């Protein structure tokens, strides 16, 4: 009896606060038992391994990827100019897969040349904004030199009045 009194039940030993006082041997034993319970409860399918087979056939229910169809709205001899414009746009889209070509044809509000011209003048405007008043003169002179029109202005300076 005396021996049994000193022993604690397994469930009690498994509790968290009892873990510290356990000696390594009983600890191992408990862990093994726990593992056994878990593996018994886990079930698995007893099936042969699935063979993965890559499929190289794609089923397609639509005619669209098979044939390059034209756009379904058409207009001839200028009956509906709106549709005629759309026809060119839609039919060229399917034909030309090269994006670059299409980009060149795209209707743009501002042409490249116009944009370049705008930016050209914009550079000057912005440059002015960031220069001080004193430097502006110098920039203007620079510009004048660039345009080959020499300013005939003589630098004005303050002349001290003579007494």
């Amino acid at each position, binding site marked *: 009896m005396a021996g049994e009194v000193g022993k604690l039940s397994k469930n009690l030993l498994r509790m968290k606060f009892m873990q510290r006082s356990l000696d390594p041997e009983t600890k191992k034993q408990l862990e093994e038992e726990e593992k056994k319970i878990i593996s018994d409860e886990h079930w698995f399918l007893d099936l042969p391994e699935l063979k993965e087979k890559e499929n*190289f*056939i794609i089923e397609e229910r639509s005619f669209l990827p*098979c044939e390059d*169809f*034209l756009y379904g*709205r058409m207009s001839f001899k200028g009956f509906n100019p709106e549709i005629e414009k759309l026809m060119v746009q839609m039919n060229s889209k399917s034909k030309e897969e090269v994006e670059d070509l299409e980009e060149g044809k795209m209707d743009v509000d501002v042409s490249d040349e116009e944009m370049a011209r705008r930016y050209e003048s914009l550079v000057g405007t912005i440059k002015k904004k960031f220069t001080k008043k004193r430097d502006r003169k110098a920039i203007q002179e620079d510009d004048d030199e660039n345009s080959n029109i020499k300013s005939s202005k003589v630098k004005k300076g303050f002349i001290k009045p003579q007494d």
Partner: protein
Amino acid sequence: MLSVPVQDVLGEVVLPGDVLLLPAQAADAPLSLSVASSVTKRMRVVCGPGLTRQGEDLQVTKCGLLRHREPAVYWVDSHQKRYVPVKGDHVIGIVTMKSGDIFKLDVAGSDQASLSFLAFEGATKKNRPNVKVGDLVYGQFIVANKDMEPELACIDGSGKANGMGVIGQDGFMFKVSLGLVRKLLTPQNDIIQELMNVFPMELVIGMNGRIWIKAKTIQQTLIVANILEACEYLTTAQRKQVFAKFSDNVQ
């Protein structure tokens, strides 16, 4: 049941049940370590309408002519009048019902298609599109499933109409077979090229076999409609003769 290599029957008649053997690919090709060669050996095969996959081969489900396009696209060009909705197809529908947020459209399929009133260009909850029962609508299928109600939209992915929407008030709509519609929509086909020189006119072709035509007068509209309907059974020579007659009239 016939089981033939696919390259032997290209452009020929195939019947449902025929099995088409694809050219042997990686199976008997020698093993190679380089990736490039294995890619070229195994091509992705696309089987279009009229064909289904059966293991490594293709099975025919419709009778017609077997068509092929590079690199490996096969389909059956068949004569058919019954339209089956397919996602991405452009069709002409007739509005049959207006109920709350959606319109019901007859698209000549087994079921009516639904069309949301928001699926029009520029439509908002407050700004509803003006669609009445009986109107013709040119739209694109965005949902087409064999178990579900098909759904149409009159805008593309970027919210643009691109010609879709309600088709104008006048004009004339008639039905032709699906095969003829495909013929008309093939790029550089003779019929459309010849039609260009007849009258000034406008036409809308739906993949569901419906064609809508509008010319300057009712008489011209009917002439074109009759020619197109007849195109189904005319030989090329006969058709050329008919078109020649009318293009002379104009000039």
